[in-house]
């Protein structure tokens, strides 16, 4: 059986992308460059990155380790400054962190001294919403993520997956234009991660939010994304921007589908290019370290 090209979009998928591209541009990244100055010398972490994201788009960013994914998303969040280039959010340049961009981190960053409810209220209070209003909204968010029962619990009483759900609610309660997520599920076990992916898609469908999601898990990227921005390392540059041909609504069943596999093959080829020369390079001759005569294979 021949796989369809990852560029061949079914008519309904094509129509969905046309609708997506007709929406406003929320995020515009233009010729973004980031250089780190360290004692050891300079690292060009990001080199001339450009892309745009439309309203309510789900964009995943993948790439080999060290290609600058975290650096990119931190610049989008305003936690780091770029060396050159610009980030425009709804047309306005980003100059620092702000409530219009929510972020969910890889590590657990809930405030341990606040209850789950107060964590979700935090951003609202920081943006001068009244206490009562903040509380009402927080409880709504907790219901939406299915953790209403845990409103008065402290973060250390929650499992990893629950913590990340609260972190998502905390970021979304501020009603940001865009939600930035840096490998938010990578510390979770496989089942929890799969459930979190479905949760996230569910939330994304229900509210007006644009998501930029970093992952190193290609299945996760294909399952979630409208488009996947593939970066390559040294220096971090855009390798390709892939429009995911897998139809929505997504279901784990599709992992075996032809579009899914075609996309994954393409991503694999981009991220793990076949080794140059012969295999000897990849698997150097290894000395035998056992005295047992028996061969295991």
């Amino acid at each position, binding site marked *: 059986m021949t796989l369809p090209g990852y560029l061949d979009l079914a008519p309904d998928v094509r129509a969905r992308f046309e609708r997506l591209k007709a929406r406003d541009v929320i995020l515009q990244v233009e010729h973004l460059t980031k250089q780190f100055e360290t004692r050891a010398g300079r690292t060009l972490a990001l080199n001339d990155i450009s892309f745009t994201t439309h309203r309510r788009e789900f964009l995943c960013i993948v790439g080999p380790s060290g290609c600058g994914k975290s650096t990119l998303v931190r610049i989008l969040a*305003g936690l780091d400054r770029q060396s050159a280039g610009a980030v425009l959010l709804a047309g306005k340049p980003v100059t620092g962190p702000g*409530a219009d961009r929510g972020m969910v981190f890889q590590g657990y960053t809930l405030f341990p*001294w*606040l209850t789950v409810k107060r964590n979700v209220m935090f*951003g609202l209070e920081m943006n001068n919403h009244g206490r009562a209003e903040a509380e009402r909204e927080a409880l709504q968010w907790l219901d939406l993520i299915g953790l209403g029962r845990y409103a008065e619990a402290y973060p250390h009483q929650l499992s990893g997956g629950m913590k990340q759900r609260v972190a998502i609610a905390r*970021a979304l309660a501020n009603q940001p234009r865009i939600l*930035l997520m840096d490998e938010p599920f990578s510390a979770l076990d496989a089942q929890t991660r799969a459930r979190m992916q479905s949760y996230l898609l569910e939330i994304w469908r229900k509210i007006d939010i644009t998501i930029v999601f970093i992952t190193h898990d290609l299945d996760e990227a294909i399952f979630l994304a409208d488009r996947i921005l593939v970066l390559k390392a040294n220096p971090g540059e855009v390798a390709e921007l892939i429009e995911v041909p897998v139809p929505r609504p997504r279901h784990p069943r599709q992992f075996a589908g032809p579009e899914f596999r075609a996309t994954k093959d393409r991503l694999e080829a981009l991220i793990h290019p076949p080794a140059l020369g012969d295999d000897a390079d990849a698997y150097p001759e290894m000395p035998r370290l056992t005295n047992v005569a028996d061969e295991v294979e």
Partner: protein
Amino acid sequence: MAALRVGQSLAPRTARRLALLSFVLPLLLWSAVSYIPFVWHPLILITDPGDVDYFQPGMRMDRADFRTEVAHAVAAHKPVPQGVPANPIYLPPPHAVFLALFTAFATPPATQDGNWLHESLWHSIQVIFWGFVISSILGVPLGILCGAYAPISKLSEPFVEFFRYLPAPAFGALAVSILGIYDGPKIAIIVIGTFFQQVLIIANTTRKLDFSLVEAALTLGTDQRRMLTRVVIPAILPDLYRDQRILLGWAWTYLIVAELIGTTSGITWFITQQARYQHFPNVYAGIAMIGIIGFGTDALLGLLARRLFPWERSIAAQFGASTA
């Protein structure tokens, strides 16, 4: 006993037993030295002076001298002096000290203008309290600011670092000439002894703050002013509290020196008076009193921490025995 393993955790019962043992063992050692006649006992307590003219009942003699006198008496066929092995007067047995812990409170002051023991103790507690409060009012905010803001740290910490090597008692004479002879200089010594350590310790605690919490707060739209009050301070509060407990312990160690400055006062006055009259059980009781108050305060503060910081697992674990 099982081999010691790094990081080994104990069953609550074992932990409690060992904790009890840490008090019982020194007490056993002290009892052994005090009550078993052939352990140490370098002196002879004279019960009957016999015919030796300078002996008196209740006198403590060197063993060798006593034996010489006994030999003389035997040789001269005179009444032989009697005595029992004894420890030096500065090592009273446990029961005498425990008794003194109670009787000392009931003993009226030796002089008209003297203080009862509870008055002396209360005076000491007040000196410690004010010394620690004044130090904390200045030291805690400065420490937090140093930990949170690099320019403030660079501007103040090098000097504080230098100053903390100057021993607080060295400022005694100076403090007396500026603040008089009563409580002023005593409180000042405790402030000097505590403040500089406090700034450095709290600055370090603040610097150890998990920076990802600050970044998370930034992405939620927290401004710089509220970053300090709503994120930095609450985040370090349990550690800050722990630091304060340790610092309070240090403040107690400056107490005796502080109370010797100017007019001797408080528990130090009691201890020095009792030592002058050779009431050694009272001396030990006075010293033990400081330990009991200090240790008791710290234990209370530890229990309070559980109420104050319900989210802190390390505190919960510290007292895990009763919560589990």
